[in-house]
């Protein structure tokens, strides 16, 4: 399966002298919400240690803590018995720990060699010694077995080759523990193979690789040890030999659905269709078709990057649609702007309320009335009384309690900020609501209120689409579930067919594997 523990002649890196990298009792909270609780693991030299889990299970947080990007709230780390405390990624690097994230940190306008030695260029009196830098580069490239020209512009390389540059940069600074967060997410099949080769050669030389990946087959093929996380907790760490795709999925699953959700009201008869999407083509969206009925909550599940938000934005006409059609109440929803979509009765709550939703420095009132200023004005003149009355009215319906509607939004809690997004939508009295990650960064109490709101909106005859990375949320709310992958809708689940196994199996299925999964 993998080339595990073969300790070959050690290279001249720190790997030869270091011992185990031990993480003990690490916890991290974001605004009171635990992202990681009491996680301990040991990474031995010469192994690939994989971290698996659902979106939000805490894998990336753990990776960031191990590489000094963020500090843990609690817990300790040590390397070969020496206790570590990182203040910055640079600190971690000085101990040989480096992280390679999805967003690569290369400078496209510099050459490969310049990128590798960025900040540590061999120089004399401030002048870079190019020849020496190239020679060092060739030596390094030979050791790791990469075939890269030092003089090419880094920006002209494929993503896999850019990743090689990052890896070489890491190794040129004597990194011995490389943390890779979803390294193959952006790669083609061939490039993925190449990267797998790199990972194998790294561990063969006595380095360790921490592999964070959604792709279970990749994990099983490469890893020596696999740690499963769920809701920030370590479920188990097993030898890869003892793991199968089934046991991993089982470990990643949450406990049974909690009663945190309102009761699903299933329509007696088929309600009329309110939204029809046919063969929609847009950036990140590949030939998507589905229908949404009045009073229905449709869940869209899938991994991060599967194209869920892209689909929502294409329907909302926020991105360039290159083909297909969207019909709202039977009428073609043309146009090229969100403003038209809103007027036609389609509203969208974007995934990031701070970046895409709210004017955080402005008042609650201004934020709520923003989409429907026509309702609170006459001939373009805003009527203070009418605005206050209207805003108070919708605020009551979404149960936001702010001391004053003149309060700036940044003073509200995350949950209340999110409810403002709902208040704005309610004010539009739409036919269809698309909510992208409606409970992200929201406390438990507000979550339930938001679930009630969604159910209530559907109950009033609205068609509701809920996109969520929180699987429980999709399962708990939706009457039907679409699972997306690589910009396509892979499978549709309804009624009894909606369960975690079915959704996860479809979401994680390799494209080479079975295309759809029986529900």
């Amino acid at each position, binding site marked *: 399966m993998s080339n595990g523990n073969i300790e070959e002649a050690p290279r001249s890196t720190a790997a030869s002298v270091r011992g185990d990298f031990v993480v003990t009792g690490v916890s991290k909270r974001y605004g009171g919400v635990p992202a990681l609780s009491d996680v301990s693991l040991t990474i031995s030299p010469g192994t690939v240690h994989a971290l698996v889990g659902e979106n939000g299970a805490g894998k990336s947080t753990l990776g960031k803590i191990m590489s000094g990007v963020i500090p843990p709230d609690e817990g300790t780390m040590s390397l070969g018995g020496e206790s570590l405390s990182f203040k910055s990624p640079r600190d971690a690097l000085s101990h040989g720990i480096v992280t390679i994230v999805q967003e690569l940190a290369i400078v496209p306008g510099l050459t490969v060699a310049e990128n590798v030695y960025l900040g540590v260029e061999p120089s004399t009196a401030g002048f870079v010694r190019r020849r020496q830098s190239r020679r060092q580069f060739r030596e390094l490239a030979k050791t790791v077995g990469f075939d890269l020209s030092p003089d090419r512009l880094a920006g002209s390389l494929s993503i896999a080759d850019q990743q090689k540059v990052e890896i070489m940069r890491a190794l040129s600074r004597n990194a011995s523990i490389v943390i890779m967060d979803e390294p193959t997410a952006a790669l083609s099949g061939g490039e993925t193979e190449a990267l797998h080769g790199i990972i194998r050669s790294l561990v063969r030389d006595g380095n360790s690789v921490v592999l964070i990946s959604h792709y279970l087959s990749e994990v099983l093929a490469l890893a020596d040890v696999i740690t499963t996380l769920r809701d920030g907790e370590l479920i188990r760490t097993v030898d890869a030999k003892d793991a199968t795709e089934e046991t991993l999925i089982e470990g990643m699953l949450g406990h049974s659905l909690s009663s945190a959700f309102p009761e699903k009201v299933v329509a007696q008869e088929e309600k009329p269709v309110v939204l029809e999407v046919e063969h929609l083509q847009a950036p990140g969206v590949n030939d998507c078709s589905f229908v949404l009925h009045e009073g229905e909550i449709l869940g869209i599940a899938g991994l991060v990057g599967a194209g869920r938000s892209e689909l929502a934005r294409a329907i*909302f006409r*926020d991105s360039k649609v290159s083909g297909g059609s969207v019909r709202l109440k039977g009428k073609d929803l043309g146009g090229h702007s969100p403003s038209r979509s809103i007027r036609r009765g389609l509203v969208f709550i974007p995934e990031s309320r701070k970046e*895409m939703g709210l004017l*955080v420095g*402005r008042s609650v009132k201004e934020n709520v009335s923003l989409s429907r200023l026509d309702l609170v004005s006459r001939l373009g003149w805003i009527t203070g009384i009418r605005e206050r009355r209207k805003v108070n009215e919708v605020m009551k319906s979404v149960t936001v*309690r702010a*001391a004053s509607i003149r309060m700036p939004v940044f003073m509200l809690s995350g949950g209340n900020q999110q409810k403002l997004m709902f208040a704005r939508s309610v004010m539009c009295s739409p036919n269809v609501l698309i909510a992208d990650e409606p409970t992200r960064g929201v406390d438990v*109490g507000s979550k339930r*209120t938001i679930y009630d709101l969604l159910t209530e909106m559907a109950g009033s005859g609205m068609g509701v689409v809920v996109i969520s990375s929180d699987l429980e949320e999709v399962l708990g709310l939706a009457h039907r579930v679409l699972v997306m992958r690589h910009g396509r809708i892979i499978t549709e689940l309804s009624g009894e067919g909606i369960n975690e196994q079915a959704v996860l199996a479809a979401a994680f299925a390799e494209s080479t594997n079975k295309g759809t999964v029986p529900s």
Partner: protein
Amino acid sequence: MNEKVETPDVLDVDEEGSSSLRSSVIRVLGSWRLAGIAIPFLILFISLSVWVGPFLTKTNLINILDQQSAYLAIAAAGTLVLVAGGLDLSVGAIYGLAAVVSGQLAEHHSPIIAIGAGLLVGLGMGVANGMIVAFLKINPFIATLAMSFVISGIALKASGNNLIVLSQNSGFYKFGNTVFLSIPSAVWITLVFVAILALVLAKTTFGRRVVASGGNAEAARLSGIRVNQIRIITYALSGLAAGYGGVIDTSRLLSAQATGVPNLTFIVLAGVVVGGTSIGGGEGSVPRTTIGVLFIAMIYNGINLTNIDQVYQQIVLGVIILIAVSLDVWARKRRV
């Protein structure tokens, strides 16, 4: 809805109890920016009145307003541009072009044509700026800077680089110099224009959309606001104001030159920023801008009246801008 009322989670803990504290915090936050310029303004006004004899005279004060009419109008419109998330560095050039266009036409045509042409030229250039920024997606700093060269070039060509001098008995002269209640018409027209823009920004749906476009363009777009359209209108208003500035000063001074007033763009921008309008967009007020412009004008006036070396004007202006911008940065940081 009915059973909703009984659910206890309706009440959110985080605002309870501290409501009175919070609303007073808001009131302070809302007013400190106005105080930030109004208090220095009053201190300066009183000091000048006390220490500099000729300052507190009707003639001098009306003179300041008369001289500042172009600046006040351009700065008011410039506030809208900044609040919408833009920047207009071409106002000085548009001012020059409108001045020579109206000046030349006033020599041989009716004042209405001269004034109308000047305003239209300004409006047209403003629309062009807006289109370039919105559709070519060029950074407004670069786009309007480049446009300022183009416009200045056109103005030089149109005037043959000559100083245009008009005679006093034309109707065009009356446009800015008709005195009503001992205040010249230039000041009256400017005040009306500024008051309208102040109300537009503070009280209308358009004003709200301007604020939203500059505060968070993505959020504004997803809320159904046509951000491009809003921004084009603000540039158009800025061009119109600059055109008006050129026309009114030509009428007041009976002379026009393609080069306009040196540094006009930056003096106006200084007034806006000193008034506490954020250079980053999403925040600002026309009344504060007015105080800011007059604050700078008073400093200039004070330096003139006391015969201090004019060189200090520049230095003082620079220092004041730095202070104003630091305050803005500081205010933004306080906000999470």
